[in-house]
């Protein structure tokens, strides 16, 4: 799967399921933390579940650096597929 297709799927999921407006979410937008769009630990579990179901990659217990943005999540998926 092309990187951009993967990132588009991740963005669609974050917008549709986690309630983030599409116009504030770029692929390098920070997802968690003070200067982010404000996702929380429950949202991270949703992302882990989605990535497992959609891409077959288990991100349980993975370092939080991999959850910085859609870019870093996609990079982790690509590296661990």
């Amino acid at each position, binding site marked *: 799967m092309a990187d951009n297709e993967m990132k588009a799927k991740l963005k669609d999921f974050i917008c549709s399921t986690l309630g983030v407006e599409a116009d504030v979410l770029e692929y390098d937008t920070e997802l968690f933390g003070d200067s982010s769009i404000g996702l929380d630990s429950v949202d991270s*579990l949703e992302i882990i*579940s*989605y990535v*497992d*179901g959609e891409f077959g990659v288990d991100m349980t217990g993975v370092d939080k650096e991999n959850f910085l943005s859609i870019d870093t999540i996609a990079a982790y998926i690509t590296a661990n597929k």
Partner: protein
Amino acid sequence: MMYIDDINEKIKQRPPFQMIDRVIEVVPGESAEGIKCVSVNEPHFIGHFPGAPIMPGVLLIEACAQLCSFVVEQEPDADKLYVLLKVDGFKFVKPVIPGDVLDISVKKTRGGGALFAFDAEVRVDGNVHAKGSLVFTAVSRDSIYKR
């Protein structure tokens, strides 16, 4: 069909916090239908509200959540518990009052990884009284009780 003895073997909740009286059908891993009979003797009606008993919406959610536990096939590891993680878009369309028989149906919508998501609906006499979505996960007992 599961009667109260079988229900007690499957779920850990007990009165006055047991919200499923009968399970009509379970499709393992997919869906379930169950019944709760609402009685004026239930303790929350003392205060919710004096002279105007209405079943609290949070307890309708709890009834749906308890029914969901019949759908999830695998038991969690001994050191883990399934907990309600998220409630989405619940609507309480019509009040539930003593004497109502709740026909509750839940259907799994997602089950990837550590999460289980369900759509739930509560009907009385065929009419929808509440509906919404629930998400569950398994968490370690230590993360709950050893902060």
